[in-house]
């Protein structure tokens, strides 16, 4: 399995998929293969955090995982293919239609085993509140690219307070426009300017660190 972990860590897609096929043919359990893949993904995430890898490399590790899952899924039981680490509700706030950053975070979260409820773009505060109430999520992610959205992020958090849900959910705002100053203004629990920070945040909320 070491070579599979290494192939994913080094972003060698063809090699990684070939190893997975070989392992499955040799009767290795899909569960063990998946575990090795996760180890590789975590290694890529660490290299990204250390500044060794950059965004497109982090994203490509998710692509490799998609290719592997095509091979792996038929061998996995239903329970093993569904996410188990926890639920995350995410969306781009009202007034902003950008979803590139949000989708990168979603791919990463799924790769790391989270169930993600994607509310899409231009999402009004009431929809965030409704989703938090209905899913019982412990994490809400508010995404944005435009710096005109600071007040809207604050509105969502204010609405959560009014609905009596603020204490049951941790809110993280994400996008390059976010900063400690913006976090403080909006009343969020944390902010992220990189996708991997979002994963770390979820791991800490759900106790997977």
């Amino acid at each position, binding site marked *: 399995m070491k070579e599979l972990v290494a192939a994913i860590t080094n972003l060698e897609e063809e090699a990684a998929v070939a190893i997975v096929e070989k392992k499955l043919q040799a009767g290795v359990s899909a569960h063990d293969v998946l575990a090795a893949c996760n180890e590789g993904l975590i290694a890529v995430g660490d290299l990204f955090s250390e500044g060794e890898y*950059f965004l497109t490399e982090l*994203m490509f590790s998710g692509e490799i995982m998609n290719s592997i899952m095509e091979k792996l899924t038929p061998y996995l039981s239903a329970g093993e293919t569904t996410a188990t680490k926890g639920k995350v509700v995410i969306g781009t706030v009202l007034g902003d239609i950008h979803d590139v950053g949000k989708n990168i975070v979603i791919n990463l979260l799924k790769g790391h085993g989270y169930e993600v409820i994607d509310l899409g773009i231009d999402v009004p505060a009431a929809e965030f509140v409704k989703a938090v109430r209905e899913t019982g999520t412990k994490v809400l992610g508010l995404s944005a690219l435009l*710096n005109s959205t600071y007040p809207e992020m604050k509105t969502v958090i204010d609405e959560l307070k009014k609905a009596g849900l603020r204490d049951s959910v941790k809110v993280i705002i994400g996008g390059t426009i976010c900063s400690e*100053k913006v976090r403080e203004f909006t009343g969020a629990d944390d902010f992220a300017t990189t996708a991997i920070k979002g994963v770390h945040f979820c791991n800490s909320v759900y106790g997977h660190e």
Partner: protein
Amino acid sequence: MEESKQQLYNERLGRYLAAIRRKPIDRISTSIPVGSYADAISGYTVQELMYDPQKAEDRAVQFLKKYPEVDTFSAGFSSTVDFDILNSRLYRIPGRDIDPKSIRQFNENEWMKADEYRKFIDDPIGFRMDVYFPRILGEYEKRGSIRSYMAFLKAGMQQGVARELSRQINTRIKNEFAIPPSSQGIVNAPFDTLTNLFRGLHGIMRDMFRQPDAVIEACEAILKQNLVSCVGMADPKKQLPVWIGATRAGFLSPKQFEKFYWPTFFKGLIVLIEAGWTVRVFLEGNWNAHLDYMAEFPKGTVLFDLDNETDIFAAHEKFGDKNVISGGIPTDLLILGSPEEVRQRVKLLIETVGKDGGWIPNSGGSIPAGCKPENFQAILDAVKEFGVYHTGPAPEPEVSDMLDVKPQLPKLDRFITSWEEAKETNNWAIPGDEDLIKKNWELFERMAYSWVISRR
């Protein structure tokens, strides 16, 4: 122009040009990109400013009456009517698709598929007409219909009208307010063109791993197109810089940057620089990993606008001795901070990055719409307080000594139907002056070619 106004115009332009050339200046240049902020304080919605040229003109007039301290202002009319005429799916339009007060928003997608590189490279016009336009232009979906012909006809006419309106506004601003624009002409980094308009970030990310050679070849093909179109729009006096928004390098590792981004980015800018132009480059996003490369540009040729994520002090360290840097006032500080915080930040930047004229005030690319007016005023006041080097006159605007230098452009025939082909297939006898007809034929061929290539 009145003499006093001409003098003021020369002071502003001279100071700005000298700052870019890294020559002595009397004070920090206030060539601050203020587009969104000027929109916001005009009292008009973004929709009104994009559709109504009188309101766009009034926006400029209002701004410059309020802030005569600025050295440059881009006053043009950014019409968006062509996006309606063609129903461009690349954008969400204020007032049509989204809130009239929102800026126009980009709809990124894989508009070109992974297996379409060959046609894209070999047949740029055919690819657009047959593949790309039917996807991105709603009014061209039913190609060959009367409606689709009308859409192209209207869009061509609209381009001429919008340019003339912009020209009129700029002329008024020059004559009445003695303010030059901050740039003339645009050129994009080929990798950005490929990513933004055709493959999207997800698409290009996969291509860099799965078909790297195709990405490189496509960038080289785009470079030719971008350069040739740019030179036609650039300042013929070679004073105002060409503008470039460099958008996607922040997502790339140094290895990817060196392989995919840098070669055609550098080549394009160097062709312009060697022909005597300067360039104003907005490095969007986080460029911290690529700053060493920026030191390769010759002294006094590039103005770098940095985004919030790039460390302006590190940039100054690497190439501040060669080229002028703008930025360093965080966007969130202007929106949420106090005038005193802004004053302190500007003071720090003038004393460090700008200590020998190497800095122009800016936020992350431009002053945000939500900037508090007292914070924008604080920037201008702090420049007066800390950014004056001497009380003598501003430098005169330098006249280019390279006016006769022709840019080394790649060979590119911009004709879909060459004159020879037209003459032959139409059986024209030409009893008169052929050159007269040919010249005009080719002029409009080139214009139409550029329109198709740059259409989005």
